[in-house]
């Protein structure tokens, strides 16, 4: 459903003079992915600062104080996560970068890796130092081939330049990064599946506890973060926690990469301070919708959709405010759903995605989402719906909700349950008449 723009609209900074683009500073800049350019812009200074002037505890503290929350979707405080690592006991420890970005609506990590790979590497060096991990694992989504290539080049450059390897910046700290490509499964973005996949096992999520800090990659202490989380850490160390915490809202600090897809004038990735409103993102930066919109998905396809109205548009895009509306900030991937799009069909598109990506480990997801739910939507969209079908989807959703092994099944229910709540009439219409309330299909012709 998401329109894939040829080239993303690169962020135009906010009009607010105080705000400067940090994470995406190099994105879209010709040649910015090279070590040379990165160094020119002050690259690896943060890592040097951390390794030569700060203790690991001080780095963790700094990140804690900054208020950074994980950008992979769940928003877990990053510094706190780092502090969960057990005391060093001689065992190998790992820092893992989750670069499997596969949630429909999310495409922020991709350009970070393509255009500014060194920023990510630097973030991993800092995090590795903070948690005492001498090995990093960079698990990059299989389809992101350009990211992979750029990362591979960057790793070679960084190693040759002495930014990875032994005794970094004259310190005692050694650090190397293992680059690993996924093979095309959304579930590999779930942290424990990612670890299984990295180890060469079937990508099923693992039981938690034990959490990765206790038993992660190869059963060893591990911390895993999202690409954007690492990139943010670079700037927190470079400019200090206070600077970072000065941006954003009470529960959400710093800047965030928001993404807009769907019928907007300028879909793309935009960096804004946390707490900016949907209105600012959609209308001021993305140029506003190109046609009437009825709903938006606020943070990647798994987050429940919200009605497209003033109340929603004026909601600050931070963790707490969106949660209050019954949805989630997620990855900040905003998807606009046109008024003319049949909501059942739009939801079916997402259900199909989750059904295809279900790992098959647990019953509600394998049989419920991947099996039955899929068939119910197929039935509806093919015009064979009957009375009772909509209710059955509702009941089935209740029987799945909160009962699956991992959040993937509930992720599918995000769009299902929210679309039912907001647009039940469209479902009923389709079930009753066999034809959608909105019949437009020629989305791709101009």
């Amino acid at each position, binding site marked *: 459903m998401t329109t894939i723009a040829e080239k993303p609209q690169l962020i135009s900074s906010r009009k607010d003079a105080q705000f400067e683009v940090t994470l995406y500073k190099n994105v879209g800049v010709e040649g910015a992915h090279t070590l040379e350019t990165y160094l020119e812009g002050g690259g690896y200074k943060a890592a040097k600062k951390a390794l030569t002037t700060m203790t690991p505890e001080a780095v963790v503290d700094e990140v804690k104080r900054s208020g950074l929350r994980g950008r992979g979707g769940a928003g877990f405080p990053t510094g706190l996560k780092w502090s969960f690592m057990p005391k060093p006991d001689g065992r190998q420890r790992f820092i893992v970068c989750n670069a499997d970005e596969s949630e429909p609506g999310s495409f922020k990590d991709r350009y970070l890796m393509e255009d500014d790979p060194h920023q990510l590497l630097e973030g991993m060096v800092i995090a590795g130092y903070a948690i005492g991990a001498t090995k990093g694992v960079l698990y990059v989504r299989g389809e992101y081939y350009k990211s992979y290539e750029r990362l591979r080049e960057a790793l070679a450059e960084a190693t040759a330049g002495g930014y990875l390897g032994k005794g970094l910046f004259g310190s005692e700290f050694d650090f190397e990064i293992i680059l690993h490509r996924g093979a095309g499964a959304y579930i590999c973005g779930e942290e424990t599946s990612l670890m299984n996949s990295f180890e060469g096992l079937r990508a099923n999520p693992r039981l938690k506890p034990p959490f990765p800090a206790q038993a992660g990659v190869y059963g060893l202490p591990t911390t895993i973060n999202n690409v954007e989380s690492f990139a943010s850490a670079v700037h927190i160390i470079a400019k200090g926690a206070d600077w970072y915490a000065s941006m954003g809202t009470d529960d959400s600090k710093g800047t965030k990469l928001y993404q807009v897809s769907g019928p907007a004038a300028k879909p793309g990735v935009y960096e804004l301070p946390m707490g900016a409103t949907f209105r600012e993102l959609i209308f001021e930066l993305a140029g506003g919708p190109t046609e009437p919109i009825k709903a938006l998905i606020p943070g990647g396809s798994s987050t429940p959709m919200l009605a497209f109205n003033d109340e929603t548009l004026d909601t600050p895009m931070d963790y707490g405010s969106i949660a209050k509306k019954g949805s989630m900030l997620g990855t900040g991937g905003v998807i606009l759903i046109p008024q003319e799009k049949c909501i059942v069909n739009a939801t079916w598109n997402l259900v199909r995605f989750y059904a*295809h990506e279900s*790992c*098959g*480990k647990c019953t509600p*997801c394998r049989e419920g989402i991947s099996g039955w739910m899929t068939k119910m939507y197929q039935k509806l969209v093919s015009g064979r719906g009957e009375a009772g079908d909509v209710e059955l989807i509702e009941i089935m959703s209740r029987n799945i909700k*909160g*009962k699956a*092994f991992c959040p993937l099944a509930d992720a599918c229910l995000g769009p299902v349950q929210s679309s039912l709540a907001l647009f039940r009439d469209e479902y009923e219409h389709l079930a009753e008449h066999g034809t959608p309330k909105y019949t437009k299909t020629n989305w791709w012709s101009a």
Partner: protein
Amino acid sequence: MKVKVNDVELDLEPGTSAIDAVFAAGYDVPYFCSQEYMSPIGACRMCLGKVGAPRKDRETNDWIRDAETGEPQIFYFPNLMATCTTAIMDGMVIDTLSKEVRQAQSGMMEFHLINHPLDCPVCDKGGACELQDRAYEYGAGTSRFEFDKRHQEKHHALSELITLDRERCIHCKRCVRYFEEVPGDEVLDFIERGGHTYIGTVDEGLPSYFTGNITDICPVGALLDATSRFRGRNWEYDHTRTVSLDDASGAAIMVDARTGRIERVKGARNTQVNLDWIDDSTRFGHEYVDAPDRLKTPLIRKGALLEPASWEEAAQFIASRLAVAGKRVGVAVRSDATLEEGVAAKALAEHLRGHAEHFPRPAASVIAENPATFTDVATSDAIFVVGDPTEEVPTLDLRIKDALRGVAPPELLAHGVPIADLRLKERMPRKRSILTVAAPYRTNLMRHAGQELIYPAGQEEDLFGGVGSGKAGASLAAEQLNQLKSALSDAKKPVIILGAFVLASAAATRAAEALAESVGAKVMKLGPMANSYGLEALEVTSDGGYADLLTQSDVLILSNLNPAQDVQIGERLRNLDLLIVHDSFETETTGLAHVVLPAKTGYEKEGTVVNLEGRFLNVYPAPVDSGTSEDFIGVVRTLGEALGVRLDGRSVRSARRSLAKTLNHDLAALPEEGLLAPVDAKEIGETVADTVAGNLLLTSSLLKVDRLRRNPKLRAAHGDVALRVNPADAEAQNLEAGANVTVNIGGVARSATIKITEDAPEGLMLLPATFDQALGLTSAEIVPAADLVSA
């Protein structure tokens, strides 16, 4: 920890799972993916419960209390929890009865059934199916799923022995986990994902000796014993819980028979012995019982022919011949005879003033001085194996692997073995370093060992001497042996396991016992057969041994033994005054006998055996139609009647009366786990000059070669008897893989198929022994099998 399940309060150990708390409280929740002795994974989502616990105030460290009642306030988890993967907490409250929980369970049941074919009327599992039972108990009775079900392969032969119906699979992952966690043979996995997920293998077949257990634990009819498929419904079978007489482990089995025929054997639970697991030979090796050439009536020699007769006629015939025969009488029973049969054999020998013996019997005593139990092995922190447990006592192979997981066997709860033992995890790291395996060739178990020592066959005494003294020995470096010794000395619970090659030499056994004493290790001796221990303890033994009995007797009464397999011995047996052979099939020896008496197999007897731990276990007869076959008790009863005496051992009861006096145990109706009562160690045995040269090693084999011909399914799965030859030797001797050869060992001619493998060391071929061949080093000559088919 205090836990409350619905209205029942109980006190359980920390670490217990919530599902076990529920069962311990006497309540039930449905479950499919959890399985005793395996890791809980939380995949089926059936065991949902509403779970809550009180919380402590961070500051005061006291419970947060309800303002009105003053009781600690219960904070419920926002979602229902899979109780199998939830550990109990102090004060936890678990609800399994509320409408919310029941609704969730019935909803999950519905999901389980949408793609299940519901072909119960033609399913072998019907009537004994967890899915069926749970659907009745927790399902809504109807389905709202109105689409085509998923269609997949319904008769996929995973191997010759196991058929997979992919439509019936509910993806509980028990079978996949089983292979990784129990035998450690990762041969099965999920393929594809989501709704397309199915179970499969990458290669052909299931290369493991322990595959059949997956048919026991499959909660539906997806994995089925191919040998018993469509042979009967569960309610038609007579289920007999007994003990396997295939090896010295005493593993518990369930024999399912119908209309006088054994249709299948399943594993049964003995928490002290085999847990729930049995090897494939124990499971699938029963077909011979029903072989068409089974002897079902006595036979009496009339000239060149053996003619059918009644037991009375046979007994009369024997009595009349005994009166005129020479006075030197030998009675020998095979070492899987029960204690009661042993009493009968002794009583008969005594009455006839002869000697009783059991065979096979190694040179050294099978009773250890400081004996180890299976539990000792499973909880050991240093195991030194000399031999090949996988082939000798397969149960032990699995119990050694328990030790490698480093998780002690679980404590039993009110409902028995915990359903979800939270200490167990998928893909646990194994503590390989605690296991050292030594053998004259590469054994299966070595794949799991931290150290493998391959020594020249016949040098077991040197090996133990070397470990004990820290000097080089048996061609192994001093350093290696030294390390092993310190590992054993430093361990808290070291165990030394002595296989057949050690017991074949009294000197080696003595050296082993000396080492064990010096490092404080317990010892487990792998006797050759199911009751080797018991028959030795009962002293069904004679001074000259079996060899003397065969050469020094005028009258021989043999039970299940076939010495004439060796033509040279056969020649001597022709001169006997009287040869009575009690066996289930015609053999070379019955061909020479004056009287042949049909014998019951191990599935048809009642009695007692003592396993290698010194554990007394009752054996029960399954209702099998075996004509007028009798066990040795029956032989002695009818003979006694003909001779006009009432001999001890004329019935199980009379034998047990006698056993109560000699062994001081009442053996009637022992508990399921048996009676662990090791007897005092015996004299180790006389040191005779050991054979130290030879080109062939006769080994134990879990596939009993004597029966393989009559166990066609097992044979199809594992191939014919193999002569294993090192590639270099094969080349030097011009032997081709797959070629059929005859192996001449003394007077015994054995046919075998050449298998070329690095497992065999250079200069040593490996051949599994028959019941009547002594294990160990010997000399053999290989000749191509005569091509009988060519015109």
